[in-house]
């Protein structure tokens, strides 16, 4: 059986937890492992934070939707917004660079710039497209 639900929040960082907690709870209906659920939660939270912080420049009151589809062996999460898009070159670069930090010099450890790579590593596949000013990120988790 395929079940679907869409979560809509206003662009405020404190609302992201509501989506994350809801996603976690409904994923108990399918056989995602705790490990895979942790990964997916991280990816979705990073994507929503980015939409609010970068896409909407922290302007409150703008809609962010997260559509979740549960199937027997797949969870699909589709995040849509009307803000600025993720620059294609940054997404491409994140796809090919790895998440390991260079820990040789602690004074040079990065304090940011991990989000896109976490989003990519959270899913089995990632698609991103812009149509009529609507940005859509699709994460597929297969199990």
């Amino acid at each position: 059986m395929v079940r679907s639900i869409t979560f809509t929040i206003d662009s405020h960082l404190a609302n992201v937890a509501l989506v994350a907690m809801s996603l976690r709870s409904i994923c108990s209906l399918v056989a995602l492992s705790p490990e895979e659920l942790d990964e997916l939660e991280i990816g979705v939270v990073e994507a929503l934070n980015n939409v609010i912080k970068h896409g909407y420049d922290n302007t409150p009151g703008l809609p962010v939707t997260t559509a979740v589809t549960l199937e027997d062996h797949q969870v699909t999460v589709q995040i849509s917004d009307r803000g600025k898009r993720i620059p294609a070159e940054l997404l491409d670069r994140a796809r090919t660079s790895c998440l390991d930090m260079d820990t040789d010099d602690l004074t040079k450890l990065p304090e940011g710039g991990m989000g896109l790579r976490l989003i990519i590593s959270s899913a089995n596949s990632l698609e991103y497209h812009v149509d009529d000013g609507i940005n859509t990120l699709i994460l597929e988790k297969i199990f």
Partner: protein
Amino acid sequence: MEPSDSDLVETTHHEGVLIVRLLTKRLDASVAPRFKTAVTDHIASGHQYLVLDLTAVDFMDSSALGAVVSCMKAVGSRGSLAISGAHGTVMKLFKLTRLDRVLNLHDTPEGAAQAIKPS
């Protein structure tokens, strides 16, 4: 620390080490700036040996991870920062970024304090 941070962290002293215990289940972008300021204020006011106790934290995102890195840098080589109680997505994030190799990770805040206390 601002009184408004009393819902976020709680501090105690243990053998010369400041234990900063997180009180929130979710350490995410909505609280990461306040968390960072709360801890770096303690460092600026002279605390060089600190434990961040993350036992209560069930979820952490990259903004909070960045705040932890900031705290490490603020302590620098003058003192020491250790972490206790990391589990679940917190540990997952430390491992994914390989930060687990440089973070001083312990099970309990007391164990962490013992490991870094100034001699």
